[in-house]
């Protein structure tokens, strides 16, 4: 019983599982906000964006920082980077109406916007996927997968066979949430999602000698999925037009 109590405590309080050291991040956050408020030119907004970027070291992730970063890049006129960071923020602030509006605004303003890919088939089944944040999905999956065996244990100890239905339901919820987490893995998606940051020509190979992949250059804000990457080039799949290699200096991920 003592173990049971310990497990429940751990499940209900997962925050200490992740090391936190927010003091320097808070200082950078405030400094970036000050720079943003004082900025009048794209260059100053870019400085604010760099300060926000400095918060995201060591794999740190935060929806508010991504959102602010998107705003800074938008004001700096870098629509591609703005779109990229708004998209990253969406995983953590899925129901934020301002984020949604700003993302659409950035897409509308981006000179290189491409066709929007169709919703994947499973998004219709996992209908709540755009409603829950990624950490919440992971939490739900973890709690359900931990709760299922514990409820089953209670059912065994207390001789309450009806509780096994609850355990099965929790297991089903955990597995479905796990599938949702796997399909909408924000951390994996951030490695696969990329955007063009300037006008460049996609090529059919990793070199300037290769033929252009498309009949027009790609421009700031063209989103694509990363298929492969080398030290200098990235192979991307562009919705509606195909695949092409792009120099890494024109790619933000």
């Amino acid at each position: 019983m003592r173990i049971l109590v310990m497990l429940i405590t751990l499940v209900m309080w997962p925050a200490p599982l992740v090391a936190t050291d927010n003091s320097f991040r808070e200082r950078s956050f405030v400094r970036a906000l000050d720079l943003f408020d004082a900025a009048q030119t794209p260059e100053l907004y870019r400085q604010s964006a760099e300060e926000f970027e400095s918060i995201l070291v060591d794999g740190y992730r935060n929806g508010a920082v991504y959102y602010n970063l998107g705003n800074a890049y938008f004001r700096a006129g870098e629509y591609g980077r703005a779109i990229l960071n708004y998209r990253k923020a969406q995983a953590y602030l899925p129901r934020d109406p301002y984020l949604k509006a700003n993302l659409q605004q950035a897409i509308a303003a981006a000179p290189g916007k491409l066709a929007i890919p169709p919703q994947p088939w499973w998004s219709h089944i996992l209908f709540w996927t755009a409603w829950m944040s990624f950490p919440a999905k992971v939490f739900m999956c973890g709690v359900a997968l931990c709760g299922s065996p514990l409820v089953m244990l209670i059912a065994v100890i207390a001789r309450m066979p009806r509780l096994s239905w609850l355990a099965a339901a929790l297991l089903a919820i955990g597995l479905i949430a796990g599938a949702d987490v796997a399909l909408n893995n924000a951390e994996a998606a951030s490695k696969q999602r990329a955007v063009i940051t300037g006008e460049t020509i996609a090529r059919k190979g990793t070199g300037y000698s290769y033929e252009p992949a498309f009949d027009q250059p790609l421009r700031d804000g063209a989103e694509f999925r990363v298929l492969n990457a080398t030290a200098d080039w990235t192979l991307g799949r562009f919705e509606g037009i195909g695949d092409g290699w792009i120099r890494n200096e024109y790619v933000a991920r």
Partner: protein
Amino acid sequence: MNPFLRILVSLLLALPASRSLAFQAPEIRVGLSAEEIFAGESVDYTVEIRNTENPAAPDMSALRDLFEVVATGDQSRNQSSTTIINGRVSQSTYLSHVYQFRLTPKQPGELQIPAPTATVDGKPLTGRKPSLRVLVPEPQDLVLVEMNSSHLKVYPTQPFTVNLTILVQPLPDNASTDPLRPLRRQPPHIEVNWIDTPDHLSAGDKYQWLQPLLARDSTGFTLNDVSASSGSFFFGESRAAVLDLSKGRETRNSPDGTPRDYFKYELSRTFTAETFGRIPLGPAVVKGAFVSEIGRDGYRAKKVVATAPAIEIEVREVPLPRPTNYCGGIGDFTVDAIARPTKLRVGDPITLTVRLQRAGDSGSLDLISAPDLSSNEQLAADFELIDKDPTGRVDGVTKEFSYVVRPKRADVSIPALSIATFDPLAEAFKQIGTAPIALEVSEAVGLNSVDLIGSVSSSTSGLKSRSEGIFQNITDPAALRDERVGWVAWSELVAVAWAVAGATSAVVLLRRRHASDGGLQRRQLAKRNANKRLGAARSALSRGDSKLAMREVRSAVIGLIADARNRVSEGLTATDVEQVLAAANVTEVDRSAIKKLLESIEAHEYGAGLPTDPKSAIDEASAWLRRVAPLLEHGA
């Protein structure tokens, strides 16, 4: 000899000349692809500099008085080899660098090509002076060649079309048949220098341009080095591509003034000037055997060379001074503007999209930069212009710029915007403008979700709970929680939960199973109960009740067997006991002893005398119990 060694020796023997060349003095060798050409044609000229490393390009200035000189590339032909025979290393090096040029004579006649010069190790080198005979085409009216351009003076990004027109007299006996049809075995050839896009010009893809012109029945002209195979173009292949350039008929006056009907052929290409300057195009040469008369054995052909003089395209710079709102557009453009949203509050952002649309053959959109809206005084007074120089986006014939502006006060609208472009036909700047856009701008008393950018639905409750406004940052440092997912911690937690629950459940179920198994419980208690009975026997004996003591000894032995095998003790006889013990691999000695003990106790029950001392019987039974009980437990 070792094959590897043999190859090395062969290589060594094959390169004695080159080995010796490495020690020869530097020299220049020139080569010419033809000794005789017609005026307007070009000849390939190579300059090879030998026996020096990385030579500088030769000085061709001496040739430019007589020729148009175009460099077509250079390549190093250095070779070096190392051979090892029986441990002896020898090296040979051949140094050569070839520069290639295309020469187009500026005048006819017997021309001696001036020698190119190069400086090697500070010493000037000079090559030989080959001769080239440039023939003037004979006057004739069988084939006429003309070249012209839609514009001889253009501005950057303005397209122009170059036409090469070839007129060929009809066949002597059939005025309606294409005069090139009898020439299908050896079609006439066109030589012109704008098939590959000249410097400072841009044009569409060469393959796409020529592909539709490919003749299906080999009636037409061959062109430069354009070759075809299975309907596709491959430059440098052996079979020349034949192009169908037929454009109908045209009447021209012959030298004696009489009108003459010609078949017309035309090759056209549209270029766009990229930089300022003068660009020569041509001359063009058409040569081949054309049908001139009919004889007894059929058509008779005459070798003809016809040329069209070169033309020069002047690319001019857009004149100065230029209007302050000049956007860089050259050509015929229209402009309009769209603002979204049109209903908003002071301070809310508006996306103002300015779209410049190009008319049919106007210049490229690439040179158009974002119009400077801050030069519009009314717009600058009423709106805050956030992004003054947005990146343009080209979509077909339209280039659009998306500005973000914020109204500074209520009741303002987007004024008409005026943008200057340059009209190359009129050679003057032209003002084009947008219509004013009416807005409904109210005071910013508070945000209303309905009034935000149209992408947000009115049912979104979250809009009412925050007051920062769109594009405002999240400023609460409390929002800075680390939202990384602790994959390892979660995995461990789930694994521990399943392991603990599984283990605990297994223990509980096992204990329950034991609790509900009577046979198991009897077996586990068999030895203890037997010892208890022996204890009772000892008690009875101490009280002097030896009969009871012997009965307890029997109960202990029978009880052990019954409990160990989950059988009813009352029905067990000495023989049954012996069988059970035999099945449990109890030794013969123990079996006999216990059987004997049980039989004597049973006999005593039925009136016989005591077979043995009760105390000895108890001790014997106790010792027997210690030996046999483990066998019975394991054999259960």
